[in-house]
């Protein structure tokens, strides 16, 4: 894992790394990847991945609209800066 690859992944994850982090990351991530390599020793031909437990069924519910006051809505959204009840963000384009 090279520094360039780390930089690319960090950008995808929208994380700015400082110089020290960028220097240490390749070795740290590489040591974990190296440890994980042993998974390739296991023959998993014909094994179904365990994405969820069979006894558990998804609970569904009606999608109903509820009206809440502006203040509650802002708190639920965790809105930081706002202007005239709208969340203010930096320019997108």
């Amino acid at each position: 894992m090279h520094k360039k690859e780390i930089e690319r992944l960090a950008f995808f994850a929208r994380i700015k790394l400082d110089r020290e982090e960028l220097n240490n990351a390749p070795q740290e991530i590489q040591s974990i990847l190296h440890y994980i390599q042993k998974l390739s020793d296991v023959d998993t031909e014909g094994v179904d991945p365990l994405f969820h437990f069979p006894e558990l069924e998804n609970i569904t519910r009606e999608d109903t609209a509820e009206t809440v006051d502006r203040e509650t809505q802002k708190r639920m959204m965790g809105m930081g800066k706002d202007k005239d009840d709208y969340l203010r963000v930096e320019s997108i384009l």
Partner: protein
Amino acid sequence: MTIKETQEKLKRKEISHREMVSSFLSRIKERNEKTNSLLSVFEDVIDKESSVKEDLPLYGAVFVVKDNILIKDERCTSGSKILEHYVAPFDATVIEKIKEGGGVFVGKGNMDEFAMGSSTENSAFGPARNPLDLERVPGGSSGGPAAAVSDGMCNVALGSDTGGSIRQPSAFCGVVGFKPTYGTVSRSGVIAMASSFDQVGPIAKNVEDAELVFKVIHGKDVLDSVTSDLVSKVVKKKIRVGVPKEYFVEGISKDIKETIEGAISKVDASEFEVVEISLPHTEYALPAYEIIMASEVSANMARYDGIRYGLEFGRPAAKSIQDAYLKNRGEGFGKEVKRRVILGTYALSAGYYDAYYVKAQKIRALIAEDFKKAFAKVDVILTPTTPTLPFKIGEKIEDPLSMHLSDIFTVTANLAGLPAITLPCGEKKGLPVGAQILAKRFHEDTLFAVAKKCEKIWK
């Protein structure tokens, strides 16, 4: 003091609820400066308790709650700078249930940032210390709650467990920690780490208290779509205890091995039958966990952009929204969180998804199958909880892999969704050693029954 002892004292009017809460608050005042177990303390709880009724199951019980579980109108940081000023707008389902059950809250417990760590050294608000030896870690990630229970700051605590985060700190602090079957306790209002592993559970003075809290908080909840009311009520008369040989090989320290072997021979001398079993894929559990956990972490952390939920580092200096995200997340997250998000981003990226994520989920299936086969022969499985005694602060923080190895015996229960409890089984060098008992999915009743007997045997 246990919940039961507290309730008896209150009923006999030896102490008033107000006096009791105030004694916990003064203990906190006296000790928290040294241990940093709590990130916030609710001094005003003293004025809120008048409506608590005697017939409620948690009547009088005083709780500390890990700081990734939402209590309405209180700060909830998850141990992270990015949530430093976040105030919870609602109660988590488990908090609602405890309130209805008569429990009260005295504070929020310190933790590794977003529950990522095994020592509470990754907290953005400074490490917590083990109350039994202040030079040592209390374990993690629920280090603050486990330390608080051990140190007499509360009767009981709530933690969360993704790869051992309730059990490992409970073992390090000499208390009981219980991770329920995946799907039995609602995570609504609990800050997510790795959603296919996360469970909330109690940290307590004894098994009886852990069971009492579990009975109040468990059950189906429409706000957590994978919850269930399933529960097995059958406890067999004759119990067979399996000891997996793979848990006694590389990595386990001599101190732990000797203490656990002593504890097992005491169990063998009791009414239980002890047999050796094999869980052949054990050595692949931690690497499989690393991949799945990091992948789910990278997805769950995406919601923290510094614009919602509080902190706004880059603003208003950011040139664009993208620049703002990069700065907010770069400065708001700590080292360990960033490492795991980057690793997860890598594991889920095109071309690597099958080789890492799907492969790890297949190995997860093999591990679950190992347990299924074992439980055809035995009723519970007994293992060490941790490979070492509580380590010194600073000892492992610079080496992420060696820190992750601290979870080697606990991650299997999360991979297979099993219920697992840790309880003290002895001491070495003045430090506690925890034993872990695992049962079949939804067989908590068997687990509690066996744990209560072992508790007596090991006392």
